[in-house]
């Protein structure tokens, strides 16, 4: 057991150490504040602001879209359907399957659809595929949080003379940690995924100004620059990996923090 623990911890530390030590070499303010100069495969100048902005665009938009689609589904599963409903059971199983589907499959699926509609790689394509990718995560995590909701809270609130609206706020308070965890988990998955955006969002050197333009993302900035024969470019890949790691670390730490903070009031 101890050996297994040591292996796991050693692994985590060496990953972070590798990314930090190699990434810090090329890391500079320019890296995160400037656009690349001279092509992503061989260019040594500038930074990768385009990838950071591209990633944030895609993640932000798909998180909002994902929430808009998932919340009604969770609501439907838990409020409208009965506990032993066949439809709910099938739906939950379907989401579990979708949860496990590798992201490259989502990428390929998105790519096929885009070809069908005659779309080129674009910000919109990336957003749609990432949304599809994170919806199962959203639904399953929020579903767990809502399923165990104690119905007595509704009675308790109503019997004190609360209106429906006031009661809804109590309900939200109870399930808020679940929603927060779901959101941060999804963002973590969405921002780090390379395979699904490769064919759908594409890659570019500029910041997209419309939904139909291709958009760069951080994982792909790592992917492409790491293949370069030029050592300086490879270092830039590690710098991009560093930025990505830091973002994901911040997200997961804050998700822990938020969950702990809010769930202390949970019943």
């Amino acid at each position: 057991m101890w050996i297994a623990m040591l292996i796991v911890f050693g692994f985590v530390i060496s990953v972070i150490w590798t990314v930090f030590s190699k990434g810090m070499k090329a890391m500079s303010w320019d890296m995160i504040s400037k656009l690349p100069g001279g092509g992503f495969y061989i260019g040594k100048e500038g930074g990768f602001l385009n990838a950071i902005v591209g990633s944030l665009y895609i993640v932000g938009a798909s998180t909002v879209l994902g929430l808009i689609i998932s919340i009604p589904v969770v609501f439907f599963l838990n409020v409208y359907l009965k506990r032993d409903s066949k439809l709910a059971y099938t739906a939950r199983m379907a989401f579990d399957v979708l949860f496990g589907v590798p992201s490259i499959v989502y990428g390929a699926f998105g790519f096929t659809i885009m070809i069908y509609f005659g779309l080129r790689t674009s910000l919109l394509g990336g957003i749609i595929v990432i949304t599809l990718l994170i919806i199962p995560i959203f639904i399953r995590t929020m579903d767990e949080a809502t399923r165990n909701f104690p119905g007595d809270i509704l009675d308790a609130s109503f019997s004190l003379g609360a209106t429906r609206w006031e009661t809804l706020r109590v309900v939200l308070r109870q399930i808020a940690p679940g929603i927060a965890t779901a959101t941060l988990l999804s963002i973590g998955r969405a921002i780090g995924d390379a395979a699904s955006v490769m064919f759908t969002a594409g890659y570019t050197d500029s910041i997209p100004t419309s939904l139909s333009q291709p958009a760069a993302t951080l994982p792909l900035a790592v992917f492409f620059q790491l293949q370069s024969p030029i050592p300086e470019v490879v270092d830039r890949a590690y710098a991009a990996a560093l930025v990505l790691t830091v973002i994901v670390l911040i997200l997961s730490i804050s998700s822990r923090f938020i969950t702990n903070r809010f769930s202390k009031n949970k019943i």
Partner: protein
Amino acid sequence: MIEVKELNVHIKGNHILKNVNVTLPEKQITCIIGPSGCGKSTLLRTLNRLIDTTEGVKLEGKVLVNGQDILSSDADVTDLRRKIGLVSQRPCPLPMSIFDNVAYGCRINKMFNKRRQLVYQVQKNLKAVGLYDEIRGRIRTPAARLSIGQQQRLCLARSLAVEPDYILADEATSALDPISAKTVEDLFVSLKEQYSIIMVTHTLRQALRIADHVVFMYLGEIIEQGPAEQVFHNPKEELTQKYLAGAFS
């Protein structure tokens, strides 16, 4: 005083309460007794119209609270529920601190303008249920951390804080350990001077200990009602005699 007249309740086609006529006296403890599934809880939930949240429910008849029919369409349900507090079987604190739990009802009903008044109200009611000294210094901590017995007393304090006229208790002690149950039971007895308490219980011994007035129900009908003394020691109906003798439960 609450008067129930010719009340019929159907839930999804099932006739749950059949032609119920009950008078519930003021400033007394009324115990509703009867075997499981006889409609005790349904009757209780009709009194503050919490029954409205049940799916497929149809109500007929009249329930007069202080002379006003609460089943009529122009009744103010929110105000009614403020006047009639409910303590449920399992304690259910709201997901907030101890203080906020008690203050919640006062806040949504906009009872006080000044914070000082609100704090006083919360303290007064926590003292009334004997929690104040137990939780001193922890009033801002989550209510979910209290023990089950404490949570139930908190729920009672929360109901009292909105200054109701009636308190409904749905087997309020059945989920508690014997000592907590005793504490809560004693609380009800001490509160009956200020509030009218209507209690559903299926432990006969509890009813024997604390009831002033008893309503016996069987299969959705009222079999017998009257002062506890008379119902327990001199029941008129054969069914009541059998139930009290333990022939069925």
